[in-house]
């Protein structure tokens, strides 16, 4: 199962990084979101994979590691705030610059940027 879990994290990282390297803002935001999933899963795995362990005191003898859980919990919320900020920035950039290219303009204007208005 460890191998499967690690593979999932790896796939998420790969997909996230690939999207991150795209030229338009929206795929980049999706990539960032996916990378934050991967990071959260990775951090969570620092507590190892524990199935059916107790999380509340007094409900069992063996406990799941609460520390990575607490760290990941805030990371999820902060990750949301950052995703929101980036996507709003992308909207503002598009509104101000007229392009959703990550550089603010399409470097060499090719024929297929029909999206430009």
């Amino acid at each position, binding site marked *: 199962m460890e*191998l499967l879990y690690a593979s999932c994290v790896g796939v998420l990282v790969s997909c996230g990084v690939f999207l991150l390297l795209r030229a338009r803002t929206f795929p980049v935001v999706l990539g960032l979101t996916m990378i934050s999933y991967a990071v959260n899963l*990775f951090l969570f*795995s620092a507590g190892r994979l524990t199935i059916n362990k107790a999380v509340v005191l007094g409900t069992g003898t063996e406990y*799941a590691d609460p*520390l990575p859980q607490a760290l990941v919990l805030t990371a999820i919320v902060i990750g949301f705030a950052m995703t929101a900020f980036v996507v709003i920035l992308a909207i503002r950039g598009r*509104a101000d610059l007229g392009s959703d290219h990550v550089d603010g303009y399409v470097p060499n204007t090719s024929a297929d940027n029909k999206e430009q208005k």
Partner: protein
Amino acid sequence: MTLLWIPLLSLIGSVISACTGKLSRNLSTSLTALAPLTALGITLYHAPAVLAGETIRYSLAWIPSIGLDLSLRLDGLSLLFMFMILGIGLLVILYTRYYLSANDSMAKLYSYLMLFMTAMLGIVMSNNVIQLWLFWELTSISSFLLISFWWHKSEARKGARMALAVTGAGGLALLAGLMLLGDIVGSYDLDVILASKAIIQSHDLYEVALVLVLLGAFTKSAQFPFHFWLPHAMAAPTPVSAYLHSATMVKAGIFLLARFHPALAGTDTWFLLVGLTGLATLLFGAYIALFKHDLKGLLAYSTISHLGLITLLLGLDTELATVAAIFHIINHATFKASLFMAVGIIDHETGTRDMRKLNGMWRYLPYTATLAMVAAAAMAGVPLLNGFLSKEMFFAETLHQQVLGSMSWLIPVLATVAGAFAVAYSARFIHDVFFNGDPINLPRIPHEPPRYMRVPIEILVVICLLVGMFPHFAIDGILSAASLAVLGQKMPHYELAIWHGFNLPLLMSAMAVVGGLFIYVNRKYLFQFQASLPPLNAKKTFERVILSVIAWCQSKVSSTENGSLQRYLVIMLAVVLLCAGWPLFEMQQLAGSMPLTPVDVHNAIGAGLLIIGALATVIWHRSRMVSLLMLSIVGLMVSVVFTRFSAPDLALTQLTVEVVTIILLMLALFFLPQHTPKESSSLRVLRDLAIASTLGVVIASICYALLTRPLDSISDFFIANAKIGGGGTNVVNVILVDFRGFDTLGEITVLGIAALGIFKVLSRIPLFMPASDSEGRPWAKERHPILLASISQSLLPLALLVSAYIFLRGHNLPGGGFIAGLVTSIAFILQYMAHGTAWINERFDVNYRKIIASGIGISLFTGVGSWFFDKPFLTTWFDYFDIPFVGKTELASAIAFDLGVYLTVVGATLMILASLGNMTADTQKKEVNI
């Protein structure tokens, strides 16, 4: 304790004087002078003990674990410098009162002066070398402010910048040198370093440390070849020059040499480096000074020359030379400060400092002229004045050294030559300005200055005379105390007397006077010769060097920074890859010692869905809506993963965040293109695929390595203390609101800032409102479907009840402020979607910014509250109460903290979504109530 007050008073004085801008000039001056006067009083109070050979120390622990203390010491050398800094500082304050015109801000200059005084006091009183360096840098910065006081003049700005660049660079070298010394000795304590001469000088890195420290001292003291900043610093107001270039700034370098003399001096390297630099500076300065037509330029080069003389004395291998150096420090400070002030008066009264125009001033300013002539004679080394005594000692010591081996006879000869030039430029100063015919084209007719503008000069000239005529009475105490601080047990016996009989030094003095007068009389030929030399413009050279450095940096920057974000990302990811991947190669085995757990069918299906979702997001990334839906599968599966591996809190958070994120991104697609054009070349795609997959493999390997190694967690502490210390059984929540409450406070603050940032980014956005999506379809057939509206409305109370329940049970069961906040937010977002923002704003008119602020405020004050019970910040308080009908209930202060978290999450989430949602609803109504 009283020691600390000396720099502290001066610092307070800086603030006070900055506030005196509106007051009358006299009041401003008096208020400014108050602090240094008090500090001088404290210094005088300590003086008897120090003069008796005692060293007074004061130390205030700051970070004792790494040896950083605020530590002060007061010995003879410090005392001498403090007298000069405070005494001449007071005179300069008085002088400035009459010098500055009504257009200049006196309060500002006073404030800078006091700041500079603080820095100088800090240098001479520091007992910790890092602390010393801090004040050293502060002198660079405050002198920059002082020199650029007339910032509207280009030369002032350039001069200030040059001074800062040169002394600042020297300061960095000094820091390196001091850290090396600290490393060699094992302590940054000055007492320890000064007592470790043997350890330092036998160390391999002694030469390196020495050169670095000397670089700091030489740049500050304007030693050749770093002298060029000093003449350009003359663009400062004259009181500033009088202060910086007589008693303080440039003397800081000399102080450093004297201070570290016990630890660093005594080797051949020291004698050669210090002695030869001093000799070169002495000769160069004295020679150039003669040719300067500007009075301040003459004094600037004369200052350089005298600094060279002191440096040379410190570099000679006799103890008496050190005494002579300290003696000359005092004498130079007195006559040079008075000369600068006299030049300031002449400049002030005539409007020029050009010696070709200034002639015959004796008729207009007889009193000032007398004072200036006495001071200039002291500078030349005329008998019965203080300059004569130290120059005699200097000549005598040049005869007794063996620094250059068999060529040591050269030093007294060159010293006499430099002495002759000093007499020549002093003669020029006196004769050209006060006699030599009539003034030429003066801007205005000069008069004697106000009475009190002359007082500082009078005081200094009286000191020159007193020391010159009654040296034993006037100066012996402080001179021997200061020398003792530098030389320790090797303190030689010396005799301060005007008359030592007919001897070689007297002959040298006589030769210098005769030679100097001869040079002055025949100056015409020298001036012609000098004019035929190719011009050497240090400023131009300096600026050329600076410009070429800037050009080089710019070319490097523009070659790496081409504005392509994708390129930067590739570089950053490559670095990540290198840093994360490299250690993997050094690992012997990827798998650890833990046995693998078997894969069951549920996990396999979950993992499969997650992987398919991720891949589908990438494959369909051009159709953004589809891609987003695929991403939501991944998010959902992540929350399932958390559920599976015993993390219900995380699962709930992930699930709720996922809902909010996807709604937000869908909203974003309203303003962004719905499709991504095909832009990347195949090669680019291949490159990105390679980077992405390599990184994925590396991270997966690290994750696998981590998972198969035994767990060594600090969580046992949290599990053991959650109930007894935090009063809750849900350990994750107790960690969030109690153990790591400070982190959580920071995190909700970030959340609040992000929401406010979004609010700001969206304000006054130039909107474009597509009526339909990119394929021409309308956004919705029905904006607010009745079914959704009625169901969501009836669901709201239930959702709020659930969130209240989740919130209240959070301390003991999965839940808490974060999750409850998100549930509440989703409930409200549903209302927005079902009814539109206008409908909501009519019924629920809430300012989300206030909710965020109150949330962070509540959390903060819960933390501060524990201070009232003498507990550290954010200590939880809890107890059990018997509440009628409810039964025994626990109340904890953590719940108030969690309430803050809840409110911040609700406020931030709703603000983010409502800000964006508002714009879709009503384009005309820009000022919406968010």
